[in-house]
């Protein structure tokens, strides 16, 4: 005997809930995001090159100033060295203070700092 009101209908329909966007949508999305990322990366690389040039030029502009200051200090120290050498070697006849050990006029930065 059927229950009062009859049997309920047989559930034969497939129950497949929506499981997110399809494969091609995901692939497309990932491609888009990556493309934007690479675009920014490329732009950033070009920009980095320019930033580096800016930095290098800021240093180039300062080179003469710093070199001039260093040269004055080096010159003063060298003169002091020569004077000291003269004082030490005053008893040696024919000694030339500050004479290069090389037989040419090319500049050699001092290897030994006396003072």
């Amino acid at each position, binding site marked *: 005997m059927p229950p009062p009101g009859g049997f309920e209908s047989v559930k034969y329909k497939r129950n497949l809930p929506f499981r997110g966007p399809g494969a091609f949508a995901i692939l497309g999305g990932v491609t888009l995001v990556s493309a934007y990322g690479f675009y920014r990366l490329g732009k950033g690389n070009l920009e980095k090159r320019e930033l580096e040039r800016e930095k290098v030029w800021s240093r180039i*502009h300062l080179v003469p100033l710093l070199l001039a200051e260093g040269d004055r200090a080096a010159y003063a120290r060298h003169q002091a060295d020569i004077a000291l050498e003269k004082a030490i070697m005053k008893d040696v006849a024919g000694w030339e203070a500050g004479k290069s050990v090389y037989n040419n006029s090319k500049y050699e930065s001092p290897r030994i700092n006396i003072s």
Partner: protein
Amino acid sequence: MSSTVQSQFVDAQTTAPPKVEEIGATSGPLKSAAFFIGAYCKEYNEDFMLCKAENRDPAHCLKEGRRVTRCTADLLTKMRENCAKQFETHWNCLERNNQEYYMCRKPERALNSCMFEKLGLLKTIPGTPEGQKPIHEVENPVYTGVQK
């Protein structure tokens, strides 16, 4: 004996009246002013570097070197007279940000415009590709500080 002789001679040399006042500015202000130094003292700088190319001896280019230093001192005085606030803001920003220009574009623009208005000095970066905005004038750069 040697130490007394030494100190005597070093002191005699280094305490002699200097012919030029050294700049004495630290790296921050110098970096902030670098492009203006390059613009303002171009002739003296080039003269000095050409002289150095002739001969590396420090004694060879002392005169040109003094001119470079005087020119820079002159520029720094002018900057302090005309754009003291912007200058100070910019180099303080550089000091706080690892001395990177790209972290300090806002104070830099204020300083640049002030320098152009008051002293007519323009920051130009040599070698910028044709038709491209120089990097310090780009509105929306990729590289910015994390904190605006």
